[in-house]
């Protein structure tokens, strides 16, 4: 009997060894002849998109759009797997680095019929490669400073307003956190777009050079833009990197434990429903030594070159790039529509806040730092900057090591 136990152990062991490598492949979905798949990364957008899709159905009743939202964390992982098995969704959300990557590998269908003059020049450029436009811009994202009015008043600090400076911001953060038992501001190595990318450009630095050949992290201006946040964390004005791991920044802000949260316009929907919604307000980015105050990123919609229903997919893409669809998008509070002159649909939906500056700031914004290998060097940022935040390395040393590692990654990119 016990001999059998050993044999069973061997058998089970063998099976476990093998099953360790069994990959799970999601089956490719096949829909009807006029059904197309549309994949996005924001589950909050599903409901508003039902409306946009209904509006499209009035124009083209012969096409059914099946929308699906994937969590952001798994979005590109899943899409890359689909791309390599030639089963990409017909239409899907893209951002700058991935659009460039997918276009370079022939996975995106170029757009021939989008009136480019309807969109900000910078966004069209971001999505153009080799003279062809590969995605239709959907929204523009710049950052703002969400703040808690009650905490400012309690500490007797003037509210942030248009034209305030980096020094004003640091003063406010330090004073409030000293006077009240709350945090003044918050940043962690993985909140670049919301926090230190802005201060890097405000200080005159850069994350990656315009030709995508060199990292900007060894430049003194860039280092200054990061040091400011690390100092706040050291002084206890910002929660530590460990605290933010356990409790994400928005939770500190919505529970009234954080005076200022640097973030994007996409917070409107969560903040308006928060218990302390009445205390929240938003202000433009502070100014630094350079003319730039933030970065501008634009989400876009792309059509897969692998699509079996290209005509239908492109018709839907064209509709998504129309004023009608973009204003529905804005009115739902999903973000600032990219279509020129339609940002009012977004700002009008939230009369309690002055959101106009988000679109205006695009004029003083650097293009969102990205390159084909952005995913790889974003990981490096996380790795090296965490060492600076923890005090294991000085900010200068961490940034220098990061620049060296990032330059290796950039050098390996096909140019």
């Amino acid at each position, binding site marked *: *009997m*016990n*001999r059998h*136990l*050993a044999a*069973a*152990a*061997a058998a*089970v*062991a063998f*099976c*476990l*060894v*093998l*099953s*360790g*490598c*069994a*990959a799970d492949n999601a089956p490719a979905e096949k829909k009807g002849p006029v059904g197309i798949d549309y994949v996005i990364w924001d589950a909050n957008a599903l409901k508003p998109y039902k409306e946009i899709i209904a509006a499209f159905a009035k124009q083209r009743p012969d096409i059914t759009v099946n929308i699906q939202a994937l969590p952001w*964390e798994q979005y590109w*992982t899943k899409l*890359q*797997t689909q*791309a*390599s*098995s*030639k089963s990409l969704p017909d239409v899907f959300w893209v951002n700058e680095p991935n659009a460039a*990557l997918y276009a370079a*590998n*022939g*996975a995106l269908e170029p757009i021939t019929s989008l009136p480019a003059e309807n969109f900000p020049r910078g966004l069209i450029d971001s999505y153009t490669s080799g003279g062809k436009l590969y995605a239709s811009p959907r929204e523009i994202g710049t950052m703002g400073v969400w703040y808690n009015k009650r905490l400012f008043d309690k500490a007797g600090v003037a509210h942030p307003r248009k034209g305030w400076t980096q020094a004003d911001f640091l003063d406010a953060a330090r004073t409030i956190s000293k006077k009240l038992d709350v945090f003044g501001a918050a940043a*962690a*190595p*993985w909140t670049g777009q919301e926090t230190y990318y802005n201060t890097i450009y405000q200080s005159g630095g850069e994350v990656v050079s315009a030709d995508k050949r060199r990292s900007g992290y060894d430049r003194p201006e860039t280092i200054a833009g990061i040091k400011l946040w690390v100092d706040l964390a050291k002084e206890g004005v910002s929660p*530590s*990197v*460990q*605290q933010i*791991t*356990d*409790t994400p920044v928005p939770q500190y802000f919505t529970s009234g434990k954080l005076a200022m949260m640097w973030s994007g316009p996409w917070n409107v929907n969560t903040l308006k429903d928060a218990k302390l919604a009445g205390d929240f307000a938003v202000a433009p980015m502070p100014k630094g030594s350079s003319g730039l105050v933030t970065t501008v990123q634009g989400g876009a919609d792309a059509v897969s070159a692998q699509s079996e229903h290209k005509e239908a997919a492109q018709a839907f893409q064209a509709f998504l790039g129309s004023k009608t669809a973009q204003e529905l998008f804005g009115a739902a509070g999903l973000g600032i529509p990219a279509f020129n002159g339609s940002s009012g649909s977004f700002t009008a939906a939230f009369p309690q806040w002055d959101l106009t500056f988000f679109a205006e700031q695009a004029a003083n914004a650097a293009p969102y730092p990205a390159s084909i290998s952005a*995913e*790889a060097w974003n*990981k490096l940022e*996380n*790795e090296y900057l*965490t060492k600076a*935040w923890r005090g294991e390395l000085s900010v200068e040393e961490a940034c220098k090591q990061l620049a060296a590692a990032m330059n290796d990654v950039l050098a390996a990119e096909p140019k």
Partner: protein
Amino acid sequence: MSARRHDGVWPWIFMTPILVPLAIFFLWPLLRTLYYSFTTWSFFGEVRWTGLDNYERLLSDPDFTLALGNTAIYTLIVMLNVPIAVYLAALMNRPGLRLRALYRALYFLPVVTMPVAVAIVWRMLYSGDFGLINAFLGLFGIQGPYWLSTPGVSLVAVAIVGIWLSLGFNIIVFSAGLNGIPPELYEAAAIDGATPWRQFRSITLPLLTPTLFFVTVLTLIGGFQVFDLIFVMLGTGPNAERSQTLVYFFYSEGFLHNDKGYATAIGIVIIALIALLTALQFRLQRRWVHYA
């Protein structure tokens, strides 16, 4: 043994229903994996033969050394599972114990719970400022660490969950092993004046060695394959890179960096390591496992 020679083709026909799926879903992918481990498999699916490049790169990759070390540490900690399970199983097997079924059910509950759900709940328990664990330690004036974001601590924290998660299964297996020991042996020992501890050492342990061996083999394999707990508990934190284990490293290269050729080489190394360690255990068992 002798029967097999005369049966000819028949046993194989009866085994087809199991052999065919095994060949399609295990052996074929395994062979493909072996093949891809000698290639560079780029983003959009072109596969290029690059010989031993992946393996050479692996040997000089500090991430691999790190993942290997982390996996070894994790597996060693999770091995503590075995003595704890033996002890608890022995306690629950004492004659005359009331509510035995309840205890077994309680310990077994984590085994049937989804690991991802378990990991999410433990992540909350481990929270540095608002977690239950640190609140409890605070009652005694102890300032608990940030469990999941302090290097060195996070792997231990995950391993504790790993132990908790698989304890129930091992207790059940050990209980079965304990029940297989004839009660006469204990009666005879008691008459000879052996203390309970002496009985445990001289009767229970030797007769339990086959079960111990079985559980040790399984625990080691489970430790080497840990992924879900690490992914959910540390995946988004600043510690994900530093606490990565072999399978996480495989996932990160294959699906995050999209370097599938390199990832398959890691997969092959994981298989080889587990096979090697298991073979080693089978060799060593002759020295300490007593089959009655």
